[in-house]
């Protein structure tokens, strides 16, 4: 009996011991919104990180689309169940920044873990966007993209356009689009995704004109939209005029227009660099060019601003968890991890070292278009007009823009009226959101 008792005791101790060691790894939850090939990247990175050390375990959880993930995170925070890391899309950046009590700046997380955060190693355009006006980095850039121009080489050939020379300015785009339509090479000349992100926010940065006061909202304090300036009005009036006879074709508010381009209906297309995967997959004979700029804008092209998403860390966690998060972010910054992320997903690398390594490997020689978005973002040091835009209610303001643009493209109002309405309605909404 005594022996049995002893054995049972040993067994119990052993079980206890083995369970404790299995549970020793601190779990770090990571909510994300990646699907398809990009979701595989998330899983692979997490698995590799978990295998590389034994103190922490990253647990990625898919939470739906970008807005759904943001909502899930907000609801979880309100219920006291927030995840450790959450992926938030560019538009939600202002929402997260306004919630200072809910989040912990990434710079603090890294420094708290005794790690030195060297900002100079990261791409300035991207880090600048995810930092406070005083330079404190708030979130970790995970997947960044930039809008570029795609064109269908077969349609260009048929229309008698130079297949090796994509249009560089918007006026050249309009001319090429008219030629495509008039020559019958395709039923439509030009289409675009995201009129808000590409034709308004990036239009401002790339042409170095103000989108809103207070450094486009990045400086904090009061913000008033400036998007009814003449350069915008001319640009949108040109779009509205081309929409009348179908030379420009509207696809929808987000990336629906990709289908129109893939179907071979339009010859020229502006879209995120992250959209490249589907175009490659379609087998189209495509070409890539820089995002066009406005030839009336002095100093253009300036630089484009990042889209995509970054990783936010929630507040109120234990030191041990923050150490784990810091270790994971350090791992993510490693050159080989960034190289993998960049080449596999089409998003931009976050560190200069990863960019240099990719360049040295000859990847850009084989895939020439892949460097375009990086060059666009890094070409010049960002000005106060080109660091990006930030509002606590950017989703709402984008909605207002989309509504007015749609009415304009349907011929119900001119570009001047549409943009005046955007400014008036947008400013009222911003004021209301800031008065919380």
């Amino acid at each position, binding site marked *: 009996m005594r022996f049995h008792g002893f054995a049972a005791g040993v067994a119990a101790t052993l079980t206890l011991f083995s369970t404790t060691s299995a549970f020793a790894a601190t779990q770090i939850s990571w909510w994300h919104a990646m699907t398809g090939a990009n979701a595989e990247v998330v899983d692979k990175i997490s698995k590799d990180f978990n295998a590389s050390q034994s103190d922490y375990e990253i647990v990625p959880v898919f939470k739906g689309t970008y*807005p759904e993930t943001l*909502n899930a995170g*907000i609801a979880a*925070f*309100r219920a006291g169940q927030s995840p450790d890391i959450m992926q938030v899309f560019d538009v939600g950046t202002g*929402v997260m920044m*306004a*919630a*200072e*009590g*809910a989040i912990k700046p990434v710079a603090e997380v890294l420094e708290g873990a005794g790690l030195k955060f060297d900002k100079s190693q990261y791409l300035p355009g991207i880090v600048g966007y995810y930092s406070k006006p005083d330079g404190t980095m708030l979130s970790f850039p995970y997947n960044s993209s930039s809008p570029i121009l795609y064109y269908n080489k077969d349609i260009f050939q048929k229309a008698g356009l130079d297949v090796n020379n994509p249009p560089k300015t918007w006026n050249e785009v309009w001319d090429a689009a008219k030629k495509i339509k008039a020559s019958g090479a395709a039923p439509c000349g030009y289409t675009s995704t995201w009129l808000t992100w590409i034709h308004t926010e990036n239009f401002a940065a790339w042409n170095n004109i103000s989108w809103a006061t207070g450094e486009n909202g990045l400086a904090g304090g009061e913000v008033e939209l400036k998007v009814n300036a003449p350069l915008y009005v001319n640009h949108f009036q040109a779009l509205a005029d081309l*929409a009348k006879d179908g030379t420009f074709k*509207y*696809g*929808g*508010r987000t990336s629906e227009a990709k*289908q*129109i381009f893939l*179907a071979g*209906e339009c010859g020229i297309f502006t879209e995120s660099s992250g959209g490249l995967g589907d175009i490659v997959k379609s087998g189209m004979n495509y070409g890539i060019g820089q995002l066009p700029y406005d030839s009336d804008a002095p100093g253009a092209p300036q630089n484009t601003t990042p889209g995509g998403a970054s990783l936010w860390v929630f507040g109120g966690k234990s030191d041990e968890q923050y150490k784990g998060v810091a270790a994971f972010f350090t791992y993510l910054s490693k050159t080989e991890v960034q190289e993998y992320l960049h080449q596999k997903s089409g998003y931009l690398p976050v560190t200069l070292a990863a960019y240099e390594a990719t360049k040295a490997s000859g990847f850009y020689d084989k895939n020439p278009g892949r460097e375009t978005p990086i060059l666009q973002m890094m070409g010049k040091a960002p000005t106060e007009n080109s660091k990006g835009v930030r509002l*606590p*209610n950017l*989703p*709402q303001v984008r*909605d207002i823009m*989309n*509504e*007015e643009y*749609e*009415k304009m*493209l*349907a011929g*119900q109002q001119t570009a001047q009226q549409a943009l005046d309405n955007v400014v008036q309605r947008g400013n009222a909404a911003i004021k209301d*959101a800031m008065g*919380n």
Partner: protein
Amino acid sequence: MTPRVVFPNKVLPYLLVAPQLAITLVFFYWPAGQALYQSMLKEDPFGLKSKFVWFANFEKVLADPAYVNSIKVTAVFSLATALVAMSVALLLAVMAERVVRGKGLYRTLMIWPYAVAPAIAGMLFLFLFNPSIGTLAVLLRKAGIAWDPLLDGTDAMMLVVTAAAWKQISYNFLFFVAGLQAIPKSLIEAAAIDGAGETKRFWTIVFPLLAPTTFFLLVINTTYAFFDTFGIIHAVTGGGPGKATETLVYKVYNDGFVNLILGDSAAQSVILMVIVIALTAIQFRYVERKVHYG
């Protein structure tokens, strides 16, 4: 009048209804109370700063031209959906009555669309009518119709009404068939002997006798168009173009979950709650009494 039922046991009846009451409390009164409380708060999305503002959110919502617009959109959408769904269903029901062979098969096939989820129905119509890739959109364009629901508000409205009505036709069909069967054949035969033609018989005998069913369906269809069509609108138009198809329910979602203005969204849902209660009251007071289920 039904006779009054008297229970001898004073405790047991309460115990028996207790589970139902508990469910109602937890799943209806609690969230409804929360919505009411939220509708009087002005709060940031994370709930870090909140201020009790009494009825300010209601005042703001009701003074907002976008809200007035969505009331109009909802009225047009609901009436059009109810009208289309009911008239097509009535036509089909009358036709199905006259089928001699395979009546059962026709009826079964007619009921199928009811089993399709709203979001799926929306996707089906989106694919059929998408201006670039839609099968039917191509035919429309070939026929010389400038079909563009992405920019033309009227086209977009027609598209969501069609999708919403298509899904509801089956349900209406079922009730109209039952209503038609309850009409005595002798009445119709007598009218025929008196020399009344088919159209005359329908409008003077069948249609008036179907009135209770029609009224019942009108209430059900309006409620359906009001509250159960979110999935269709979300999938097909997302409220656009402009705000041409933004119904009251869609606006609650958009303001609350996309724009993250929780107070306004809650105030709108409280207003909707009042509308539902009113509709239900009408239904119970007038409709339930008059409809004979045979």
